[in-house]
C-alpha cells in the first residue's frame, strides 16, 4: 500500500531566521515603520540633542540646569505634588476597588460607570470643572463654610491643595482599575480559610488580602505617579504660572520662552523618570507574582 517514503519536503528549520523571514511577520512592518519614523526616531533625536554640547556627548546642559536653585524648587514641586496625588488616589481608590469587586447587579454597574465615564471624558473638561468648583464662591468653599469647618469662604484655586484635589480626581480611575483587576482574581476561599483558622478580620486583611493585591497596588501607584509627574493641563488651569513643575516648565520653555535647550533638558528628565517608573514597577509587579499591567 504505502510507497516508500519520499524525502519529506516539510518545513526545514531555518538556519538564518532573520534572512528568511516568516511572511506573516511582514504584516507588522507598516505599523513598525510608521511608529519608528514618527515617534521612535524623534525620541532618539531629542535624547541625543539634550545630551550633546558643542564637542560631542556632554552633560553640560543637564549640569547647568541642576546647578540652578530654581530648578530644584521645580523638581521639589513636581515630586511632592505627584507623591501627594498618588497617596490620595491610593487611599480613595483601594476601598472603591474592593467595593467594585464585591458589588453585584445595579450597584456594580453604577460604581463601574462612575469610574469609566470620567475616564472617557477629556482632561480639559475636568480641569475646567475644578476651576469652577475650587473658586472662593465655589461649592467646596460653600460646603465647608456651611458645615462650620471654615469660618469664612476661602479660595482653593491657585493653591497646592486645590491642585492635588483636582489631579487626584483626574487620575483616580488609573488607581482603581488595576487594583480591581487583581482583587477580582483572588479566590474568595482564601480569606475564608484564614477566618476558619481563627484569624481576626484585620489580620486577615493584612496577611491575606493585602499581599495578594500588592501587584495591583504597584501598577496603580506607578500609573498615577507617572501621570502626576508629567501632568500639564491640570496645573495650567488649576494653579497657574506661579507654581512650576517639570512638565509645565517644559511646556513653557517650548511654547512661550522659545528656550529649546531648557525644554529638551527638562523633557529628558521627565522621560527618564517615566521610563524608570515603568521598568521598575513592571519588574516589581512580576516579582510579586501577578501579571503587572503597567
Amino acid at each position, binding site marked *: 500500500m504505502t510507497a516508500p517514503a519520499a524525502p519529506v519536503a516539510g518545513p526545514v528549520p531555518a538556519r538564518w*531566521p532573520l534572512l528568511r523571514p516568516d511572511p506573516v*511577520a511582514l504584516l*507588522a512592518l507598516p505599523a513598525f515603520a510608521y*511608529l519608528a519614523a514618527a515617534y*521612535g526616531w524623534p525620541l532618539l533625536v531629542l535624547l541625543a540633542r539634550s545630551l550633546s554640547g558643542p564637542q560631542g556627548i556632554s552633560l553640560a546642559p543637564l549640569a547647568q540646569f541642576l546647578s540652578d536653585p530654581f530648578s530644584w524648587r521645580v523638581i521639589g514641586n513636581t515630586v511632592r505634588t505627584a507623591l501627594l496625588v498618588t497617596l490620595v488616589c491610593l487611599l480613595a481608590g483601594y476601598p472603591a476597588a474592593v467595593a467594585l469587586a464585591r458589588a453585584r447587579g445595579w450597584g456594580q454597574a453604577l460604581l463601574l460607570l462612575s469610574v469609566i465615564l470620567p475616564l472617557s471624558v477629556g482632561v480639559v473638561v475636568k480641569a475646567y*470643572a475644578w476651576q469652577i468648583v475650587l473658586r472662593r464662591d465655589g461649592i467646596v468653599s460653600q460646603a465647608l463654610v456651611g458645615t462650620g469647618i471654615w469660618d469664612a469662604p476661602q479660595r482653593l484655586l491657585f493653591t497646592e491643595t486645590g491642585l492635588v484635589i483636582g489631579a487626584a480626581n483626574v487620575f483616580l480611575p488609573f488607581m482603581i482599575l488595576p487594583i480591581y483587576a487583581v482583587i477580582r482574581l483572588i479566590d474568595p476561599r482564601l480569606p475564608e480559610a484564614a477566618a476558619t483558622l481563627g484569624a481576626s*478580620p484585620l489580620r486577615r486583611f493584612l496577611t491575606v488580602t493585602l499581599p495578594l493585591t500588592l501587584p495591583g497596588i504597584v501598577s496603580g501607584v506607578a500609573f498615577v505617579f507617572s501621570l502626576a509627574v508629567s501632568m500639564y493641563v491640570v496645573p495650567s488651569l488649576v494653579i497657574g504660572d506661579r507654581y512650576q513643575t517639570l512638565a509645565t516648565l517644559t511646556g513653557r520653555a517650548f511654547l512661550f520662552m522659545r528656550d529649546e535647550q531648557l525644554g529638551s533638558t527638562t523633557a529628558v528628565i521627565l522621560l527618564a523618570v517615566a521610563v524608570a517608573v515603568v521598568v521598575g514597577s513592571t519588574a516589581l509587579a512580576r516579582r510579586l507574582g501577578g501579571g503587572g499591567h503597567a
Partner: protein
Amino acid sequence: MTATERIALALVWVLAIAAALFLMAPLLVTVAVSFGSSAVFTLPPPAWSTRWYERLWASRDLWPAVWTSLRVACLATALALVLGTLCAIAVVRGRFPGREALVTFLISPLMLPGLVVGIAMLQGFRAAGLRDVGVSLLIAHGVITLPYVVRTVVAALSLFDFTLIDAARTLGLSYPAAILRVLVPGLAPAFLTSGLFAFLASMDNYPISIFFTDAWTKTLPIQMLQYVEERPDPTVAAISALLILLAVAVLILGGRLVGLRRLAEV
C-alpha cells in the same frame, strides 16, 4: 459575619460611594453650570437657561475646532485600526524574534509623558522638513491611537481559537470567506472597544496636539483652553457638557455591544 466585619464592610461601601461621587462631581458641576443663567458660575444656578448653548451655537471659534478634532480623530482611529490589526496578526501568528519587544514599543507612547512625545515629534517633523500642520497633526494622532488598537487586538487574537478557521474551511468556505465570517466577527468586540477608546483619546488629547496647531488648525481642547483664558463665561461648560454626552453615548454603545465590565479591562 461578625460585628467588626459588618462595620468594616459598611465603611468600605461608604468610602466607595464617596469616591464615586468625587469622580462624578466635575461632570455634574459642568452640566449644572452649562444650564444655569449665571455668568459667574453660581451654584446652584439662580435660574435655568439655555443661553450658553445659544452662545455656543453662534460661536465662530469653537465649531471649526470641533470639526478639526472629529476629522482628525476619525482618520487617526481608522489608520490605527488598519495598521494595528495587521501588526497584531503578525505578532500573534508570526514566528520571529522580538515580538514582545515590538508590542512594548508600539504601546510605549501611552506610557511616556505626552508633552515629551509631542516635543520629540515636533523637532523630528521639523528636521524632516514636514511643515504642513494638518498632516503633522494627523501623524501625531496616529501615534496616540495605535497603542490602544495594538494592545486590545493582540489580547483578543491570543485568545482566538484559530482552529475555527480550519473548521470553516473544512466545511467548504474559501480562505477569505473564512476570515471574513469567522475571524472578523470574533474580533469585533476588540475592534469596537479599542476604536472607541482610541477615538476618545484623540478627541481629548491636549499635550501632544498643542505642538501641532496654528492660527487656522486648532483641535477642540486647545481652542477650549484658549477660550477660557480669553472669555471666562460658561460657554465652555456648554461644549464640555456636549463632550460628556458624547462619552455617555460611546459608553452606552460599547456597553450594549460588549458589556460594561469588558470596557473596564481596556
